[in-house]
């Protein structure tokens, strides 16, 4: 059988084009790679190369012909040993049908629009996917597990968040040779915020690695090492600097498992202080919770207490997936009770009810949990019983705990330092609408940072950040008091 030369598409959206010029004539011998013809669309011109070798048997479409359909036969090449009589039985009549995708029969598009048809068939897949997930409520159920609540431990010690983080890393480094810490000033300087204090002495410079000030580079380097099964804990001096590295956090760490069809995992932890510290200005005071929580392929954790910090950082290091671990500089020096047990680990994806209540649910994470607890005290004085939920994990979000609480209180206030637009509060408001709309007695209220870059002046900074009084006011508003 003679070999068909088809009108090629220059792009997935091209359906027809002009056959501008033939570079060969009938009877010519051609090799793979020889240019046979030039074709044009309104956007570009391109050469058609031979993929097979042989003799040009017949040119079907004349040079200069416009509107030649993609995949139409434009010429025949005779294979070695064939002569012109082989052309007697060929019928170049119609455009060749591009093999249809599996479910292409669901739509009517012609084969020459195969790219359009495949994108059309993708739409219902997406839609049904969304429906399946909506039915699959509450989503967080699967992340519940047997990990012990910290209250069930018998021995506790008082620790700062800083010490708890250090102990979490040290304990995991003792049990797993593949765990190492890297970042700016993590080793000899003992950590810019002293979180890695003592690690260099115990583990040496092979496993506690001072990096140059080069976030993009060392984040990519850590990610590459994690592809190979090492378990890097990458410290950012603050998450503000991780903006230089976000390409590798999202494009390399979060997406590679999917892009590789499950072949290449990335067990890495990106940790460091997030959000506002004190008087450090706009470029050093931003909450990235919603940025990272937006992305599939990542887990995002934001601890409040020292117990959160320890139990969740250990879980993050053990997790086979990339985890963004958002700490808070102001909390580093605060002390809490922490179970005194090397096996103390907290489950990722499970929120904690810090204080039970019946009138209003207050959801917070990181430093805002402390402010929410203060607000709950004040509300109690005014006879309002607030339930305070410490999210602990932002992604996957523990929808169950929030929804159950709202079913009880019928009112909810969300709290975050970050900006309101597309923030965590916005997501929780949607989740509540999807799962507990009929239980709401008031619209969801959001307490967030003001919609401004962080000012330096002390008084303005206080005004820009959400305070416990804002939470009190919002809670009273949703209680109509």
């Amino acid at each position, binding site marked *: 059988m003679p070999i068909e030369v088809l009108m090629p598409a220059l792009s997935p959206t091209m359906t027809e084009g002009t056959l501008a010029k033939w570079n060969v004539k009938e009877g010519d011998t051609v090799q793979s790679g020889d240019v046979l013809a030039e074709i044009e669309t309104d956007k570009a011109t391109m050469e058609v190369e031979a*993929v097979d070798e042989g003799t040009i048997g017949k040119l079907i479409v004349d040079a200069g012909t416009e509107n030649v359909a993609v995949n139409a036969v434009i010429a025949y090449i005779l294979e070695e040993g064939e002569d012109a009589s082989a052309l007697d039985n060929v019928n170049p009549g119609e455009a060749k049908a591009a093999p249809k995708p599996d479910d292409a029969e669901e739509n009517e598009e012609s084969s020459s629009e195969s790219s359009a048809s495949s994108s059309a068939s993708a739409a219902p897949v997406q839609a049904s996917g969304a429906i399946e997930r909506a039915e699959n409520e509450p989503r967080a159920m699967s992340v519940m597990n047997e990990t012990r609540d910290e209250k069930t431990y018998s021995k506790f010690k008082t620790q700062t968040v800083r010490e708890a983080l250090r102990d979490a890393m040290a304990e995991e480094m003792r049990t797993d040779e593949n765990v190492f810490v890297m970042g700016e000033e993590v080793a000899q300087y003992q950590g810019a915020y002293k979180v890695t204090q003592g690690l260099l002495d115990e583990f040496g410079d092979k496993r506690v690695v001072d990096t*140059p000030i080069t976030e993009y*580079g060392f*984040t*990519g380097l850590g990610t590459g090492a994690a592809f190979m099964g090492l378990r890097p804990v990458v410290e950012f001096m603050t998450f503000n600097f991780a903006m230089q590295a976000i390409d590798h956090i999202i494009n390399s760490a979060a997406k590679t498992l*999917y892009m590789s*069809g499950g072949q*290449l995992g990335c067990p890495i932890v990106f940790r460091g202080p997030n959000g506002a510290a004190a008087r450090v200005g706009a470029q050093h005071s931003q909450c990235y919770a919603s940025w990272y929580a937006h992305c599939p392929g990542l887990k995002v954790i934001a601890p409040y207490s020292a117990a959160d910090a320890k139990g969740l950082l250990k879980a993050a290091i053990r997790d086979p997936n990339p985890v963004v671990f958002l700490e808070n500089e102001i909390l580093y020096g605060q002390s809490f009770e922490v179970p005194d047990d090397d096996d103390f680990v907290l489950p990722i994806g499970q929120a904690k009810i810090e204080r039970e209540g019946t009138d209003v649910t207050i959801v917070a994470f990181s430093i805002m949990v402390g402010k929410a607890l203060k607000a709950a005290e004040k509300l109690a004085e005014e006879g309002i019983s607030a339930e305070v939920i410490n999210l602990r994990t932002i992604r996957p979000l523990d929808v169950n705990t929030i929804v159950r609480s709202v079913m009880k209180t019928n009112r909810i206030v969300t709290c975050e330092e970050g900006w309101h637009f597309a923030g965590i509060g916005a997501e929780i408001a949607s989740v509540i609408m999807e799962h507990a709309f009929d239980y709401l007695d008031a619209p969801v209220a959001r307490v967030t940072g003001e919609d401004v870059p962080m000012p330096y002046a002390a008084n303005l900074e206080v005004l820009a950040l959400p305070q416990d009084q804002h939470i009190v006011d919002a809670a009273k508003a949703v209680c109509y008091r």
Partner: protein
Amino acid sequence: MATTKRKRATTRADNQASSEDLLKYYRDMLLIRRFEEKAGQLYGMGLIGGFCHLYIGQEAVVVGMQAATSGDDGVITSYRDHGHMLACGMDSAGVMAELTGREGGYSHGKGGSMHMFSKEKNFYGGHGIVGGQVPLGTGIAFNYKYRGEDKVCLTYLGDGAVNQGQVYESFNMAALWKLPVVYCIENNQYAMGTSTQRHSASPDLYQRGEAYGIPGEQVDGMDVLAVKEAGERAIKHCREGNGPFILELKTYRYRGHSMSDPAKYRTKDELDKMRKEHDPIDMVKKLLIDGNILDEDGLKDIDKEVKAEIAKAAEFAQNSPEPDRSELFTDILIEV
């Protein structure tokens, strides 16, 4: 330590390559070329979508470099990756089926032309952001050193990527920590449509590591034997614990940057001259014939065999089903 040296390796029939080696290089390069021609054809038929960056013209680079490795060394590259995968020994049918977005593809259709991986063949992608693979490859080398493994990571980048900041962040760390990584700069002379003269203040890319004390060498990337020889020197340097090495492999892509690029930024004469005078496959073909290693019939047999493999790959890529709908939600996170 020697800093940079400029050396163009010689490539004549009096080289030491054995007949078996030459035959292997010929076959491997031909396989890549026929694969890419077929991919271009399937793209034209609408069977491959999105971006598709062909490697035609550059075959000697990966085949020569792969011949210089131990076989266990790691390889990572950008999105012009089909040739690298075939050179690493990945199955042509699995690669082609990924191009068509089918279940039988290396990533079950979820990666596409730019994103394939094979742990088994030590191929770590397939990365779509220009320069992104450079710190990743440096991290793979960090892993080899951390574990005390006697391996080197070949980290390929193009002449466009050499102007990315993250490349220099990687050079710095690799030199500082003496990581076993060979940065293979495939200088095909065009960063998409912008020529090296127009995008690089200093066009001698092998010198880009000078500030970090990384030795560099410029190599005729159209000559598989020169590439192999230089690759062996670079890899030896890394294995001996001296840190990274930079190879600038001067090469040429015959096709546009991607399928939709008509490559109007260069002259037809320039392309024709490369094809006629410097084609990497023709060069080895001539060595085979002049050295009486194989006659025209023998070469034809290899051509046929390669063609048959590609035909099989194309058939598989068209017949393998699209991924099941359930694949949409798998491999996002590893279940704990």
